[in-house]
């Protein structure tokens, strides 16, 4: 049976069940998503944006799904005491693909802000959700987005009204918790109205040794002059597969800082589609990957400059050890009217062993003439002169190598706006390189 067939069969048999346990407004797009998924199937490696990751293979194993929305037997607030020093956050949990609604820290949120279960809000305010849900995440263009849209029943909704700023970081911990191999389909919708500001920290963890397959679609609407910081930290384990599609739409004068850090995983595929719809907007999108053993990390980005006077910056860095495979493909698309675009894309990679492999593909597609665009990509090793300099000061070869590796990835971490988070990540990265973080033991941010 082909990989897609089991999902086609699943939906054919279970569509009613899924819909029964889900809000009408989410159900409204399900059948269309199913048709799109059926039409596309899983992308083969001949599909340009999926060249480096074999989707059919990832989705082939048989996973369980919680379509009946059975309640989660754990209280994550007790299981996880997350406290990054000096970073006070409003903490939320998504256990598998269900938003944990008990004991919510509502008190920290300003007036009018909603941070809640997507399915809950979808039932209460269908008109509002209908306006945004599955709009920028088009099911006809990506079959994983189609699959997620056809199966997703819950996730997170964040709404920040006009000119409201949330000072406290919204931290969302995605916990994978199951006694059987499990597939989860999460959905996140973030709406920042004009002038609104919010900072997010998404942390992915797996608390069990089961095989997990997570699909995630994040849609973020960033209004005029609004500001979004979206940090995603993945720290799961080698049996975990995550396919995350992030869609961001920016209106004029808005700014986005998006950071994706992969510390531990099995197979990770991150797609980012960011589109500038209003002039004078800016984005800074960064990624940092530390991979070893048989880890596979594929970041695929599209920055779509549709309007003039926008600025995009991308910096992705990989350190690949053992037999890890890394891929980075980033397209900067500058459309005909997007004059005065400034864009810089950089991908730098350290390949430490012979069996590790790196594929890199920085791309520019430009239809406007008055632009300044550049990209650069390097694959190489640590600087010999720096190594010798350190050794001449008595620092061992291993220690010198570690220091240079931290320095290499710290350049990405230092672009994050949240200082306490930066400090914590410096610490985590160092531990990761020293081999002291061999597998996820729950929330490493907290210990």
């Amino acid at each position: 049976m082909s990989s897609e067939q089991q999902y086609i069969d699943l939906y054919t048999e279970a569509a009613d069940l899924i819909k029964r346990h889900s809000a009408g407004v989410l159900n409204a797009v399900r059948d269309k998503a199913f048709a799109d998924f059926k039409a596309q199937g899983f992308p083969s490696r001949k599909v340009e944006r999926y060249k480096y990751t074999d989707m059919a293979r990832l989705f082939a194993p048989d996973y369980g799904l919680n379509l009946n929305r059975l309640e989660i037997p754990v209280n994550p607030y007790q299981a996880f005491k997350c406290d990054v020093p000096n970073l006070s956050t409003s903490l939320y949990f998504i256990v598998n693909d269900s938003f944990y609604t008990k004991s919510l820290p509502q008190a920290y949120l300003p007036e009018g802000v909603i941070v809640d279960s997507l399915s809950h809000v979808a039932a209460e305010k269908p008109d509002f959700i209908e306006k945004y849900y599955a709009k920028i995440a088009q099911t006809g263009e990506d079959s994983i987005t189609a699959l997620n849209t056809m199966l997703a029943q819950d996730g997170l909704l964040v709404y920040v009204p006009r000119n409201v700023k949330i000072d406290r970081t919204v931290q969302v911990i995605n916990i994978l918790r199951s006694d059987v191999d499990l597939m989860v389909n999460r959905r996140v919708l973030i709406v920042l109205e004009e002038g609104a500001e919010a900072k997010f920290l998404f942390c992915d963890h797996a608390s069990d040794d089961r095989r997990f397959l997570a699909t995630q679609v994040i849609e973020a609407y960033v209004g005029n002059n609004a500001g979004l910081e979206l940090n995603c930290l993945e720290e799961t384990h080698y049996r975990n597969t995550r396919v995350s599609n992030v869609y961001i739409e920016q209106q004029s004068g808005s700014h986005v800082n998006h950071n994706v850090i992969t510390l531990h995983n099995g197979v990770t595929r991150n797609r980012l589609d960011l589109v500038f719809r209003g002039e004078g907007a800016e984005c800074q999108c960064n990624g940092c990957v530390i991979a070893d053993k048989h880890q596979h990390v594929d970041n695929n980005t599209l920055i779509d400059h549709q309007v003039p006077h926008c600025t995009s910056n991308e910096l992705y860095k990989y350190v690949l050890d053992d037999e890890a495979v890394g891929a980075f493909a980033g397209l900067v698309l500058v459309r005909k009217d997007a004059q005065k675009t400034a864009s810089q894309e950089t991908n730098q990679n350290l390949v430490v062993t012979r069996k590790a492999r790196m594929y890199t593909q920085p791309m520019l597609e430009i239809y406007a003439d008055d632009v300044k665009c550049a990209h650069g990509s390097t694959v190489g090793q640590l600087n010999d002169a720096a190594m010798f300099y350190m050794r001449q000061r008595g620092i061992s070869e291993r220690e010198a190598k570690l220091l240079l590796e931290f320095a290499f990835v710290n350049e990405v971490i230092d672009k994050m706006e949240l200082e306490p988070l930066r400090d914590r990540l410096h610490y985590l990265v160092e531990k990761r390189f020293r081999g002291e973080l061999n597998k996820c033991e729950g929330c490493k941010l907290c210990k």
Partner: protein
Amino acid sequence: MLEVRNLHATIAGKEILKGINLTVRDGEIHAIMGPNGSGKSTLSAVLTGNPLYEVTDGVVIFEGQDLLQMKPEDRARAGLFLSFQYPVEIPGVSMTNFMRAAINAKREYEGKEPLNAADFMKLMREKRKLVDLDSKLSRRSVNEGFSGGEKKRNEIFQMAMLEPKLSILDETDSGLDVDAMRVVADGVNKMHNDTTSAIVITHYERLLDMIKPNVVHVLYNGRIVKTAGPQLAREIEQRGYDWIKEAADAAFGE
């Protein structure tokens, strides 16, 4: 302290050092002068174990140990320090982390406990004053964005931190104005005593007015072709190298 016998070394198959003999005793300062391309920097690189160079013959004994068998970091921990002619910039590695790693590596080698944070910072402050180095520099990345003079002072600062037995100053004076050179020389002189030694590699006599050598050698075409007292530096300043070159060319038939 240091005994070099018949040292030959190549880089990429090309022989640069063609039989160096040199003895440095405790408390001595040796100057090595010589025209460009004579092998001065190669000598410092080979002594400190730069992997770019291959030693093809010869023996080096440092404090009773067979230096050429030791890894670069062990040579450093045993007390050999090189002030680089071109200190490399290491973006992203702060001076503080770098120095702490170096100090504690040395202490571990000597069987001592690592320095605690407070003592380490205190030591940093103390030694910084020696070379008049700004406290902000220690928060920056190693040598990154440092001016030429700052880089050289930073080398001497590290020397003060690590308290080596034998320091090799590879053209530490190049690119420095007189005032900066004075700061560097004062730093070196303050650290010098009966149990430490130095090899000062330079083109110019000027630095040797401030750091007084016991012996001056001229290195030419991979060999030490002349050795004399401090007055040799002055003579070279006045007469250049040609007279020495001619004599050497005649002696070695090149």
